């Protein structure tokens, strides 16, 4: 290799810090890593930090204000309430990373569920077939949006605003004005209303820890094989420990009985029920979160989404098929939105002609509150999930306080504007400009 002859040229601090490599920010002990992370935060690369902080502050606040907030029952309730929004937020990340928006995602969730329920309840179609149809329609809607945005070149705001209206019309036609259908499929209802057996929760936690640990070690082996430094191994253990403690706490709380206590009638225990275990929707969300994150972080498709969000012209000149990536991102978004619809009808238990209408902006809000940049190119799926939890906590907590619904909208709207401001300001500090080019 020609590297040996240049070795002599290296002078100054470079030669002392590493023999034959330019730094990569992976060197040093755990304190150096924490220091480097703090530098990035101060430079405006805050990630999910504000959202996590908000989640903690709000949780403490509501625990103090309401005796019902920090209970096993409400904790499980929060999970299922948040699931729809988490899913929708994660779906939207794919298009928001491109600097685009999908205002119709909530209604996509709604209209596919309208068609699903009419197929099952009215037409008598097998629910699995009907579900497949719903997902296909989701894909079709994404294809439609993607065509007009990526190929024709209409701003996504306009295309999806059009669909937001159009799909509501379709819902009305499919369901009929004032119509309402009950969901009677046990498998669908189980997603949000049934729980894993208590051992299932622990198995889930072990799987999460194993997957996280194995990917970390595969990464480290690849880096060692290439001869570049790894982060200190203490970080891997620290990460696994945090997962184990927080996950263990969550599983423990969800595994406790949160059912109705029995009433004593004539010396006999009457009524009451045992409800325990992790809601089935949780592993659903975790799997989708993991797959999506894997694609975004470790595959070309994901990298190209970030590249186009950062600088579409640079992406094009690098040989990336910008049109294809843009187009498919809308398909992914609409496809994942169908899951949000599914979680929603499982929770609510019925479908009406307004399904998904008020979900739209909450989904965008979830992503933005979690730290996904509306300017494109920055953000991760987990950010949208955390953002959705923040919004769900607000809704849940204010509901427990018996405040009027209007306050909920006001607070959520305020949090969204605050989050968007943090996004814009941190972007300037990170060296970017406010203006999109």
């Amino acid at each position, binding site marked *: 290799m020609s590297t040996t002859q240049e070795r002599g040229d290296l002078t100054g601090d470079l030669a002392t810090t590493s023999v034959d490599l*330019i730094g990569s*920010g992976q060197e040093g002990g755990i304190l150096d890593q924490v220091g480097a992370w703090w530098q990035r935060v101060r430079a405006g690369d805050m990630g999910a930090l504000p959202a996590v902080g908000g989640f903690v502050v709000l949780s403490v606040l509501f625990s103090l204000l309401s005796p019902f907030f920090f209970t096993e029952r409400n904790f499980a309730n929060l999970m299922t309430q948040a699931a729809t929004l988490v899913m929708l937020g994660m779906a939207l990340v794919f298009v928001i990373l491109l600097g685009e928006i999908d205002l119709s995602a909530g209604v996509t969730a709604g209209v596919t569920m309208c068609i699903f329920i009419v197929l099952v309840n009215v037409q008598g179609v097998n629910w699995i077939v009907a579900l497949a149809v719903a997902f296909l329609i989701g894909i079709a809607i994404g294809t439609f949006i993607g065509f007009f945005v990526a190929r024709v070149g209409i701003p996504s705001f306009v295309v999806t605003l059009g669909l937001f209206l159009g799909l509501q019309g379709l819902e009305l036609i499919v369901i009929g004005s004032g119509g309402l259908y009950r969901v009677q499929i046990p498998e669908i209802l189980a997603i949000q209303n049934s729980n894993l057996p208590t051992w299932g929760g622990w198995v889930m936690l072990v799987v999460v820890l194993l997957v996280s640990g194995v990917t970390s070690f595969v990464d480290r082996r*690849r*880096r060692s*094989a290439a001869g570049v430094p790894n982060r200190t191994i203490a970080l891997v253990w620290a990460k696994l420990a945090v997962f184990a403690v927080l996950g263990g706490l969550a599983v423990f709380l969800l595994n406790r009985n949160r059912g109705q206590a029995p009433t004593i009638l004539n010396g006999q225990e009457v009524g009451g029920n045992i409800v325990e275990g992790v809601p089935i929707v949780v592993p659903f969300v975790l799997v989708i979160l993991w797959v999506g994150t894997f694609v975004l972080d470790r595959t070309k498709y994901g990298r190209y989404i970030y590249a186009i969000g950062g600088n579409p012209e640079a992406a094009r000149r690098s040989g990336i098929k910008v049109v294809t990536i843009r187009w498919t991102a809308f398909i992914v978004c609409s496809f994942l939105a169908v899951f949000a619809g599914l979680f929603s009808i499982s929770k609510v238990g019925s479908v009406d002609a307004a399904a998904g209408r008020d979900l739209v902006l909450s989904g965008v809000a979830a992503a933005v509150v979690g730290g996904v940049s509306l300017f494109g190119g920055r953000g991760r799926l987990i950010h949208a999930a955390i953002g959705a939890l923040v919004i769900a906590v607000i809704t849940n907590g204010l509901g427990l306080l018996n405040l009027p619904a209007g306050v909920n909208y006001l607070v959520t709207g305020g949090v969204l504007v605050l989050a968007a401001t943090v996004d814009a300001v941190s972007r300037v500090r990170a060296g970017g400009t406010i203006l999109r080019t």
Partner: protein
Amino acid sequence: MSVPIIELTDVVKSFGPVSVLKGVSLRAYPGKVTALVGDNGAGKSTLIKGLAGVQPYDSGSVRFDGEEVSLHSPRDASRLGVEVVYQDLALCDNLDIVQNMFLGREETRLGTFDEGRMEREASDTLRSLSVRTVKSVRQKVSSLSGGQRQTVAIARAVLKKARVVILDEPTAALGVAQTEQVLALVRRLADQGVAVIIISHNLADVFAVADHISVLYLGQMVADLETRATTRDDVVGYITGTKTMGVSA
């Protein structure tokens, strides 16, 4: 004189009735820096876009290593090892240095990124250019200065094993110290055996770094000079059209 890597002969390009290149010839040699100068509208960009395969020439021959080749798409250019570093730097601010250098041709194993290998190669490439201004290859490009960005863009071309690197106004937006760094980098690039073509309006830069100077004037190559054997006044004369060489090369 060695064999030119790339040799353009009598290339012609017109847009409708406007002929922009009227039979231009240009040669670039391995290990040499060739400066392409000329006033605005002289046809520099058109000449470069033809080489990059973005806007193919109407007629004329392009020889690569002495063999006639066709340049009709950016892919053709890329396959021959011709890389253009554009003035408005095609980098993604939100990605780090390694990610930018490998954008569009990432190293993967089992369909997933081999980050270690990419980091290694990026680091080796930067070091082979004796880059000392970059602290970490995992820095986001948004945190880099103009000179560092230019460095990354050039290193990106080197990483692709480019044999001809065309730099479009590489020092236009840079301060004095950064200009110095980039020019030194251009020199090292040539020392690796790459044929460098540099477009610049800044004659001080041109004289500092170029071995040959080719002057375009209204779509014609009016002078092909050895830097050592010419003066600034002569070059200015050719650029403005007050001086001619008689026969263009």
